[in-house]
């Protein structure tokens, strides 16, 4: 019943809002964004660089099951510990334009916290393409199965 991560993507807009409440104190939530070895664990990526300060930058690399490497990078514009990070995000060697991310961290109680992430894309089309990407790359197993089902159904109904 519970749906912890919420995404608001209004039709026809070029941004989206991701919100998530964590059963973690604010400081620990923020630390998960700053410590390279922790970022590596939850993002499933290797951190080549993570320089958390204004005008700092980061670069991550992931390997897909076929062994291909995908690099991501961005520049950090604002960095206020336990409050906010404003940064860009870009996938290297893809046609996707750079996107702008506003991350806001807040304490709900001593032991819970909330992350609000607004992502601004270059266009509505770019946003919608990005939303569909997890399918294209097969990141999510459960939903690949769902896709298989839909494919099956499409075959039946054609």
């Amino acid at each position, binding site marked *: *019943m*519970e*749906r*912890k*991560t*919420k*995404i608001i*993507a*209004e*039709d026809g807009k070029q941004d989206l809002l*991701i919100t*998530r409440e*964590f*059963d*973690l104190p604010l400081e*620990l*939530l923020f*630390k*998960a964004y700053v410590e390279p070895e*922790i970022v590596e*664990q*939850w*993002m*499933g990526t290797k951190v080549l660089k993570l320089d958390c300060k204004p005008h700092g930058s980061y670069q991550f690399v992931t390997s897909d099951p076929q062994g291909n490497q995908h690099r991501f990078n961005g520049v950090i514009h604002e960095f206020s510990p336990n409050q906010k990070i404003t940064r860009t995000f870009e996938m290297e060697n893809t046609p996707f334009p750079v996107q702008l991310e506003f991350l806001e961290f807040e304490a709900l109680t001593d032991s819970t916290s909330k*992350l609000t992430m607004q992502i601004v894309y270059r266009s509505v089309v770019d946003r919608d393409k*990005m*939303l*569909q*990407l*997890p*399918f294209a790359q097969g*990141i*999510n197993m*459960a*939903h690949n*199965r*769902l*896709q298989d*089902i*839909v494919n*099956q*159904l*499409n075959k*039946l*109904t054609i």
Partner: protein
Amino acid sequence: MNLRRDVFQAIADPTRRTILMLLASQSMTAGAIAANFDTARPTVSKHLHILSECELLSQVQNGREIHYHLNPQKMKEIADFIEPFRAMWDERFDKLESIMKIYPSKK
């Protein structure tokens, strides 16, 4: 958008996703669906009710039995749009949460 949100709420639950997968290959009665789960029958009925309300399932009376079918159109709507993206972030954030829960004790 409201309709869409309801649909995604419906498939956020693992039991309901399993029900959708069961029904992908054949239509089934509530009893046959419930037989696949350890949970109580009323719980399964509740899930069927939610899925029906979101139009992911339709019911067809077949003699004395009611068979549940998938609604392919609605299923496609889900597959095409936002849910995989949300699920990807949900998984990442779940991981973040579980990693950080054990973090203080390590230091």
